[in-house]
């Protein structure tokens, strides 16, 4: 029996995740572009790590970090009396971490594609760095940022490994589409699993198709 709750939850988690991912990705790409520090290459590799590490490893690391006994988990309990393990916040956290490299890489490539002379021209016309960023850098890198955003959304929608480690599979609370597929299959309910497979496939296909269509129109 297909329930819509995992579908709605998946969209909700992915939507909130991409908000975080957008700001974190743009901020880190901008800072990394502006600074020249020793160890920059190492930091860059660290940012890309969630893309290449198995999601379950990301989940394990997050569990160690934000779990009840983890350093962040202890702080959260002590100062805010809150716990994020096995909550929707954990699903958002997992989604944010695994999709961050996609946003970061897309933004970085978009920034690299900008003619630096245009930013210099804005500076010589009296613009502050903030104004240069909003009126030149962002508008010119917009197609790349949208790509990053859409890919991150699609990635978060399909997130399984890290999510199950820290958000668990609580129907109605933390069960997203991929988790629903896994547990329906495990309990031999292939019809439900198949329906979820169709739903998530159509959803992600539409997103990517929409992106490509938009890109085709803007170029």
């Amino acid at each position, binding site marked *: 029996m297909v329930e819509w709750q995992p579908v709605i939850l998946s969209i909700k988690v992915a939507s909130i995740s991409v908000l975080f991912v957008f700001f974190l990705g743009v901020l880190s790409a901008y800072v990394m572009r502006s600074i020249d520090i020793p160890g920059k290459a190492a930091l860059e590799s660290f940012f890309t790590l969630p893309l290449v590490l198995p999601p379950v490893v990301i989940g394990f690391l997050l569990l160690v970090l934000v779990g009840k006994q983890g350093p962040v988990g202890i702080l959260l309990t002590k100062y805010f009396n809150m716990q994020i393990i096995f909550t929707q916040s954990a699903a958002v956290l997992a989604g944010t971490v695994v999709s961050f490299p996609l946003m970061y890489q897309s933004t970085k490539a978009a920034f690299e594609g900008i003619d630096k002379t*245009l930013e*210099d*021209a*804005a500076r010589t016309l009296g613009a502050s760095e903030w104004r240069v960023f909003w009126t030149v850098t962002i508008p010119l890198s917009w197609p790349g940022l949208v790509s990053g955003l859409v890919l991150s959304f699609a990635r978060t929608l399909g997130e399984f490994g890290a999510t199950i480690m820290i958000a668990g599979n609580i129907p109605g609370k933390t069960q997203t589409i991929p988790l629903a597929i896994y547990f329906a299959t495990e309990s031999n309910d292939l019809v439900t699993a198949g329906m979820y497979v169709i739903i998530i496939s159509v959803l992600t296909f539409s997103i990517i198709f929409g992106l490509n269509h938009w890109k085709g129109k803007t170029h």
Partner: protein
Amino acid sequence: MLTVDIKKKLSDFTLDISFTAPNKTLVLFGPSGCGKTTILRCIAGLMKPDEGSIVSNKTVFYSSKAATHLPPRSRNVSYMFQDFALFPHMNVKHNIWYGVKTHSQQATDLYEKLITLLKIEHLPHRTIVQLSGGEKQRVAMARALMAEPQILLLDEPLSALDAQSRYELQDELKKLQEIWNIPFILVTHSPEEAQALGSEVIFLHQGQQVSEPPPSWYMNGNGKTPRSSFQYFY
């Protein structure tokens, strides 16, 4: 009046230059890679010299002794880049208005004056890709002057244009300099451009000022026939 006295180590040589630019057109002439653009970038604040000073009227743009390095936005120096660097996502009008701090009646009057002088009244709503090379040059000029600069830097301003536009714009540049009466510092490797526009010419070779013009100065485009108009400058 602008006084420049700077040193900067570049990959192949050390730029070491000292000059004063009055309210006229000063040409920095030299072959590609002799440090001309670096000088402009240092004046604009886009690059930091290793030592020395850059002073415009009484404003210290850069001083290694006083550890002063004003950011480009505080220098009031407009820079016309070689490829014009017009913002492709804005129309002509938005490009021209970009450097205006307060949208006053005075700014509107200046805008009207500039687009009339530069003969671009018909272009305000065009996008940049719709412009020809000559039109881009005029729009870039309008944008640079609209910011009401104390100094205007021009990097090979006519090199991207065809002969007809180049000829027209040379005259317009001269006219604009007379009206604005601020230092125009122009870099070029074209003797023709230097001779047509410069009230004063500084010859550069590997980052240093040289007293003798390089052989290319006496040649025309094919590098064979001696030029006849250079005496004008001596």
